[in-house]
């Protein structure tokens, strides 16, 4: 029974395609998988927007949306209808073709990333040998669409937002890739299904997830920082800082094209959180060995949603960085630390198992963290904090 529930979507797909002639079946299976992804994640996006607005409202001592439906939960429906019926305004001086193509390129590139994510046991659309590489290739092509949006609008806010976004995405893509490389070094494979399988066994009741090793924990933190910057979320939301740039690269978009940008941003969050869960948090595997009877897809989506909750929490908590702080943080802290972590991972790989490698690897990473933090802060000459109040 538990097995049936675990594989329910696979069984459903097989039952649906057995009505078709045998020649069409592989094709139909792929189409069904694509349709499922294209339906489920935008549905999650609609839910996330209302939870985000309610959650931020709670953190800021206000109610959030509460007019449409019970507790305002049908707000995304109203938003969807609004964005579909709003007039689609294209500025007179804008480059119409590029302006039209930009949101499409973004959404298509972001959707492609889901093709290699294992959403559950056997639930992966394309089990590619180079899955991780494919994911990052698709992530890199979103930069082009952001440039297209900012440049084609012929608006100084848009072009500034696009330049900021691209500079930020390029700077943080390096640590993002380098922190994922550690997982590849230990697993010995770029295939995401193999990476999940390598973590899906237990010591006692506890799982062997990579986040519970010194190098994995450090990589996970660096990955989380870089992923937040890649998705332009607070505290790294300078490209669309509404108080300085209106909305950054999509200032000149209205109606459904704006909704597509919004969708692309949230889908990017879902996919990068899913990748983080796959690389470090065991993907679809259960957190304790006595919980393996719970269907695997429930675990994947729980981890994904937990990551989204943390994104929302940070948005309600942290202020926005300045541009120089953003760049200094990327190049002077995150990048050297990920490089050091690569060496520590190699050390972990070639040292004998046992407590010694735990002590050595943890000591190197913790020492480097404290040293880099101390020297970085000492250079700033910060005194004790002082407060000035408006008269």
């Amino acid at each position: 029974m538990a097995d049936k529930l675990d594989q329910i979507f696979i069984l459903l797909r097989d039952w649906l395609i057995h009505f078709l002639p045998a020649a069409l079946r592989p094709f139909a299976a792929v189409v069904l998988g694509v349709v499922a992804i294209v339906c489920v994640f935008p549905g999650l996006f609609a839910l996330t927007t209302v939870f985000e607005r309610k959650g931020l409202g709670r953190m800021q001592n206000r109610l959030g949306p509460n007019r449409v439906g019970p507790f305002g939960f049908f707000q995304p429906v109203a938003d969807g209808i609004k964005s579909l019926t709003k007039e689609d305004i294209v500025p007179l001086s804008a480059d119409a073709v590029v302006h039209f193509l930009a949101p499409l390129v973004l959404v298509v590139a972001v959707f492609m990333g889901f093709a290699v994510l294992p959403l559950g046991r056997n639930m992966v659309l394309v089990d590619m040998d180079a899955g991780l590489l494919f994911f990052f290739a698709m992530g890199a092509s979103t930069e082009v669409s952001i440039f297209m949006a900012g440049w084609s609008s012929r608006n100084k806010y848009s072009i500034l937002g696009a330049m900021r976004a691209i500079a930020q995405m390029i700077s943080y893509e390096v640590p993002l890739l380098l922190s994922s490389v550690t997982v590849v070094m230990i697993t010995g494979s770029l295939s995401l299904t193999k990476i999940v399988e390598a973590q899906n066994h237990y010591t006692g009741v506890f799982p062997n997830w990579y986040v519970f090793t010194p190098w994995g924990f450090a990589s996970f933190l660096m990955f989380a920082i870089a992923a937040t910057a890649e998705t332009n979320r607070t505290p790294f939301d300078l490209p669309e800082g509404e108080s300085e740039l209106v909305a950054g690269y999509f200032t000149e978009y209205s109606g459904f094209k704006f909704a597509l940008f919004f969708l692309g941003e949230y889908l990017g969050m879902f996919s990068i959180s899913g990748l983080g869960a796959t690389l470090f948090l065991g993907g679809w595997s259960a957190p304790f060995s006595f919980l393996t009877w719970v269907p695997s897809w429930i675990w994947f989506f729980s981890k994904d949603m937990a990551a989204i909750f943390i994104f929302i929490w940070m948005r309600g908590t942290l202020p926005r960085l300045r541009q120089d702080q953003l760049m200094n943080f990327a190049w002077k802290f995150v990048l050297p630390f990920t490089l050091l972590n690569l060496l520590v991972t190699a050390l972990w790989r070639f040292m004998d198992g046992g407590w010694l490698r735990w002590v050595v690897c943890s000591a190197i990473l913790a020492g480097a963290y404290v040293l880099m933090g101390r020297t970085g802060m000492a250079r700033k000459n910060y005194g004790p904090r002082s407060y000035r109040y408006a008269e």
Partner: protein
Amino acid sequence: MSVIFFLVAALTVAGGLAAVLFKNTVHCALAVTVAFAGLALLFLSLDAQFAGFAQVLVYIGAVAILVVFAILLTRGSETPQSGVFSKSWFTGLVIAAGIFAVLGWAVMQSAHALPQQAAAPAVTVHDIGVALVGRYVLPLEIVALLLTAATIGAVIVALHEKERTQ
């Protein structure tokens, strides 16, 4: 297979032609991106996953963005008054045709020079990785050294300008 090849080839050639013929420099850069994407698809249709994804990651994710940055940071995307073609376009065309002819001839000859292989060798990403850090580790290190030198050079160029303004 052949239908896909012709579609992708048409896309690639169209992207390349557009990159040469468009008036606006940024449009040209975006057209080059289309040509890069077409090349990546060609690699993928030949079952070369690593080459295809590396093409997307490096050329679309980095080179195209670099080109666009260079255009925007230097002289803007306005169409030059004198038109997009340089005066020596005919010489350029002859040289390009010559190189294409030599390459085409070499590719055609290789079918006779090498013994026919029964099946395409199955090269996985794993094999490429093993070869890179095994047999070809010295070229890899030399390339890494070259890139590091280039990075340091770029930093020095940037630093120099900053000192002069102070």
